[in-house]
């Protein structure tokens, strides 16, 4: 079976109005196996969102190749092989919570009865069943983000792309969502590429943590997290010495050159 994501020698430069072009990513290579959970961590501006957008075919590399399930990123997008949650929730303000979650099913002409059942299931998953009829502007930022997460899961994608989806959540909801996400991705066998600023979050969720450095954005180190398969990860893991050891390993990789990177939470 081909890799869920295969990135080979990818560089992305952005031409800016006057000044020199910005190299958001330089010579990045990474593969993600089917069902594997990979987190991207690194200081602000190191190209995490850019890398995710390349995988999603929302942007194209300046050079190098991105393939998803053995196809071009474009073909994978057209085949709807991935679900995505953006850094901003990006809900449609004129649709109710339920209608927002329903959006991809609606666009892909899933029958109405099936749609309704799936939406109920997803809202349960993110704990918003009581808010099905509310509008996004009636929800807190964290609740909006949960709607976006439910929407990303709507079509049971075999690849999930998530850009700091838990950034706006309170610590308790965040840990609950992490546990749920790890369970769900293990159950559905979905591969996940997950962007985060939190080291413990990356460690708790991932099979491997990709540590990036900025200007130009590169992969500094890939830290394997040997904490066992996702379905066996529970709250107890957070207190496990192996967990702390992995947190330390990622922290050292991040701080490799001695400088303290900006924008990375050390909690």
């Amino acid at each position, binding site marked *: 079976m081909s890799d869920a994501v295969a990135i080979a020698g990818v560089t992305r430069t952005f031409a800016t109005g006057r000044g020199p072009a910005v190299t958001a990513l330089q010579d990045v290579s990474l593969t993600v196996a089917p069902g594997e959970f990979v987190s991207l961590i690194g200081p602000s501006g190191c190209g995490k969102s850019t890398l995710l*957008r390349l995988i*999603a*075919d*929302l942007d194209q590399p300046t050079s190098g190749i991105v393939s998803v399930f053995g196809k071009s990123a474009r073909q994978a*997008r*057209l085949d*709807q092989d*991935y679900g*995505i949650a*953006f850094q*901003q929730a*990006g809900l*449609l*303000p*004129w649709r109710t919570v339920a209608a927002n979650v329903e*959006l*991809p099913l*609606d*666009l*892909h002409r899933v029958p109405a009865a099936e749609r309704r059942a799936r939406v109920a299931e997803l809202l349960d998953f993110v704990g918003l069943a009581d808010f099905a009829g509310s*509008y996004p*502007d009636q929800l807190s930022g964290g609740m909006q983000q949960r709607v976006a997460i439910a929407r990303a899961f709507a079509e049971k994608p075999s690849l999930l792309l998530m850009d700091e989806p838990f950034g706006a959540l309170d610590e308790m909801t965040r840990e609950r969502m992490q546990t749920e996400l790890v369970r769900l991705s293990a159950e559905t066998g979905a591969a996940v590429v997950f962007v985060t600023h939190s080291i413990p979050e990356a460690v708790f969720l991932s099979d491997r943590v990709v540590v990036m450095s900025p200007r130009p954005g590169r992969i500094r180190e890939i830290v394997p997290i040997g904490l066992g398969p996702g379905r066996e990860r529970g709250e107890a893991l957070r207190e496990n010495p192996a967990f702390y050891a992995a947190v330390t390993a990622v922290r050292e990789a991040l701080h490799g050159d001695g400088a303290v990177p900006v924008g990375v939470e050390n909690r």
Partner: protein
Amino acid sequence: MRARIASPLAVAWPPVALAVVAVAIWQGVVVLGKVPEFLLPAPGAILGDLLAHPGLIGSATLVTGLNGLVGLVVGAVVAVVLAAVAAAVRFFDRMSAPIVAAVAVVPIVSLAPVCYTMFGAASQQPRQYIAAVAAFAPVFLTTLRGLRQVRPVHRDLMTAYAASGWQATRTVTLPGALPYLFSGLNVASSLAVISALVTEYFGGPRDGLGSLITSAAATSNYATAWAYVFGAIVLGLVFYLVTLALEWFASRRA
């Protein structure tokens, strides 16, 4: 977040109180100062005239109102269709932009005399066309802006879902543009009424508010002229408030 909506009574009483005081002062000045009627009739006299023949004033208001409404609807429909074309076809946009800018600044009523010769002096059409042209520009400009205002994250979402062009239009572009359309309509509604009314000053059947204001003034029936002016004020307010309500309704979730 939406502001808390105050009770209608709390919103309404200050301006009503102000109006009552202003009318009382007006009445006092006219009566005590012995102001000649052609300069400014007393509110009491105007009210007397309103009560004397409400039917006449009502039917004149309806005639002008209908012309304004027809103009508003026609102008708005054409504007929305052309804005959609301009949003979709770059070339058409570049071609039409200067023309629309010109239409927006030309005092449309200056066309009125020409229109009466074109469509005949017995017809309501010149009034409706002028109102339509006046309503066109604000609706076109705001709708076009709204259609261009798709948020990047929504555009990305549609790309990610491999939505077709029409699906993206239906799901994000049109709903996002709706509040813009209605705010354009709100501006256009006043323009349509004013244009329909002012066009009557230049000729045509003597049945609308504009025609009757000129006739009453010409025959020294000043209180009657002012009673028709009162009808025009009510008409303008109705158009404004109805479109304002539509705008509020459309933008409450955007």
